[in-house]
C-alpha cells in the first residue's frame, strides 16, 4: 500500500516558489494499475519521484507498506528504491556508453550475487521485452521504442513490487506506444503495482485507479 498524506513539494528558484505537488492525499493499493493524468507541469513526475524516494516532500508524508519515506536517510532511501521500486523514466535515461545488457544489469552491479546470475536475470528480461538480438548494441543504435523497452527491462531486473512509468508513450509513435503499454500491462498482470504518469488520455482506459492532476493537486480520482 502506498499512501501520501498532505504531501507537498515546493521548488525554490531564487525568490520564486513553485508548488509542484500541493497537499496531495492519495492511497494506492497493492496490485493496482494507477494512471495519473494531467497536462505538462501538473505535478505528475514530482508525485512519482516522491513515491520512488528520489525526492522528499517539503511537507506531509509518503508511506509505502507502512514505512514513512520522509523518515529515511539517503542510504535507507537507496535500499528502498533497490528493493521496491522499478522506475521507467520519461527520457529512458540509459547510459550511452553501456550496451543493452550492461544497462539492464546496472541495478544489479552493486548487489552481492555472481556475475553469471546477474547476467542470466538481465537476459531473461531482455528476452521478455524482445531485444535478445540487440544485447551488445549501444542505446544510440536503438530506436525510441527499443530504448524504452530496455528501460523497462532495467526497471524490472531487481524484481520490484512497484513499477513506476513516467510518460512511457511520449516521443513514441502510436503503434510503438501501444506495444510499450502492452508490455507494462503484462508485467502488471504478474502482480506488480503499476503507476503510470501520462498526459495521454488513451491510457485512462487501462486504469483500475485513475488520478487526474492539475497545478499540483488531485482534481479527480476514480
Amino acid at each position, binding site marked *: 500500500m502506498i499512501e501520501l498524506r498532505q504531501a507537498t513539494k515546493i521548488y525554490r528558484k531564487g525568490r520564486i516558489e513553485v508548488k509542484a505537488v500541493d497537499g496531495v492525499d492519495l492511497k494506492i493499493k497493492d496490485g493496482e494499475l494507477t494512471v495519473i493524468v494531467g497536462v505538462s507541469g501538473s505535478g505528475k513526475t514530482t508525485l512519482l*519521484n516522491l513515491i*520512488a524516494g*528520489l*525526492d522528499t516532500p517539503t511537507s506531509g508524508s509518503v508511506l509505502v507498506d507502512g514505512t514513512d519515506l520522509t523518515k529515511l536517510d*539517503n*542510504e535507507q532511501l*537507496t*535500499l528502498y*528504491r*533497490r*528493493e521496491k521500486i522499478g*522506475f521507467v*523514466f520519461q*527520457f529512458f*535515461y*540509459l*547510459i550511452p*556508453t553501456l550496451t543493452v545488457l*550492461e544497462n539492464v544489469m*546496472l*541495478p544489479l*552491479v*552493486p548487489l552481492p550475487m555472481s*556475475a553469471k546470475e*546477474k547476467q542470466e536475470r538481465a537476459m531473461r528480461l531482455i528476452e521478455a521485452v524482445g531485444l535478445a538480438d540487440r544485447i551488445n548494441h549501444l542505446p544510440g543504435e536503438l530506436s525510441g521504442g527499443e530504448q524504452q523497452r530496455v528501460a523497462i527491462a*532495467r*526497471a524490472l531486473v*531487481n524484481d520490484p513490487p512497484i513499477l513506476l512509468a513516467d510518460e512511457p508513450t511520449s516521443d513514441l509513435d502510436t503503434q510503438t506506444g501501444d506495444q510499450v503499454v502492452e508490455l507494462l500491462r503484462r508485467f502488471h498482470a504478474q502482480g506488480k503495482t503499476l503507476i503510470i504518469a501520462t498526459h495521454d488520455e488513451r491510457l485512462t482506459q487501462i486504469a483500475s485507479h485513475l488520478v487526474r492532476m492539475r497545478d499540483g493537486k488531485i482534481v479527480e480520482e476514480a
Partner: protein
Amino acid sequence: MILAYAWREVARRKTRTTLMVMSIFFAIALFVSVLAVLNFFKEAVSLPFKTAGADMVVETFVEPGPWKRVRLARHLGPIPLSVLNEIKGIPGVEDVSGLLLFWSWEAPRMINIAAVDPSDLERVSPVSTRTALGRMFTRLELSVPSFEGYSAILDKRFAETFGLKVGSQIELAGRKFTVIGIVDYTNVPRVGQAEVFIPLNVALEMVRESHEYLRGKGDFVNMILVKLSAGADRKAVEGKIRQIVANATGLNPEKQVKVFTSESILPDTTGVSLLTQQMFKVIAILMLIGIALLVMKTSVAAVTERTQEIGIMKAVGWRDSDIAKLILTESAIQGLIGGILGCIAGYAVAFLYAATAKFNLPHPIVPYSCLPAAAPPQTLSVAMKLSWELIILALVISLAMSLLGGYLAAKHAATMRPAEALRRL
C-alpha cells in the same frame, strides 16, 4: 563486479582516461627518472669506496718531493702511521687502514705501487683478500717482508700487459719481487688502486732510500681509508680526522688535509652540483604537486560531467558508497596504469642516461702517474639497478594522487540528489 564495471568505464571513456593516465604518467616518469639518475650518481660514486670497504679517504696535499726513481704519488704527503690509531679511537670509526702510494720509474714507464698496511687488511683495503689467481699476503710477509724474499700482488691488467703470472719475478727500484697473486679490478675503479701491491715495510725502505727528507719521519702512509660505523656523525668524524692529521703533520687542517667521501666527490665526478641535484628534486616534487592538483580538478570535473550517469545509478539503487567504490576503483586503475607506465618510461630514460654517462674519478682518489704501465679503470661505468623502493614509492604516489582525486570526486558525487541530478539533464 564493480572492478569489472570500473575497468570497462576506464576503457570506454578514452579521452578522460588518457588525460588522467598521461598526467600521472608524465609526473611519475619525471619523478622516477630524476630520482633514479640521482641514485645512480650516488651508487656510481660510492662504488670506488664500497669496493675498498671504506667510507672516507684521508690525504694531505703537499708540494711533491724531488723527481727520483721512486717518489710519492702526486701531491700526497706523508702521514705518520701512529695517526691510524688515533683515528681508530674516534667515536663512529669502525676500521682504519693506511696505504703508501708511490711511483717507481721503470723505463719507459712509471709503475704505480700501493703498499698496504698489515693491520685491517681483511676489512678496509684497496686490495681484496680474494685474489683471482695465487694468494694474498700472509701476515708474516706483511710484518717481515723479506722473510721469504719480496712478494707482490699484481693488478690483472698490469700482469697481462707484461705477460706476468703467479711465480713470475718483477723488478721494482732495484728489488726483485715474486708475484704471489693477481687481483682482477678490471672495470672496477676503487680508491687507492694501483698496478702493484707490496707490503708497507719494504715500500718504506724503497722510498726512504730515494728521499733523504723521508728518512727521519718514522713509519708513515700517505692515504688513509676509514670505515665508519652505522649511524656515525660523518661531519664530526671528518672534523676530528682533519684535526688529528693536521696536528701530526703540521699542515693546515682545512686547506692541506683532504677528506674525500662519495658525497664530496659527487659534484666533481658527475659534473652536477649538489644544488642542481636538489633543484631537480624540487622540480620533480613541484611537478608531482601540480599534476596532483590537475588530477583532482579533472576527477571532480569528470563527476560533474557524469551527473546523468550518477543520477541514474542512484535512482536504480546504487548507494553513495557503491558510487564512491566505483569512482575510487576507476581512479586506482588510472593511477596504477599511469604509475606503471611512468616507472617504465622514467627508468628507460634513466637507463639510457646511465648507458651513455661517463664519470671520471678525481685524481686524488686514483693518484696514478701520467705514464702508467696499464691505464687505471678511472671511468665509472656502473650498471643502473632497479630500485624496488623507488618503484613502490612511485606507485604509492601515483595511487595516492589518483585516489585523492577520486576521493574528492566521490565526495562531490555523494552530494548529488538523484532527482536533482536527473532534472539537470
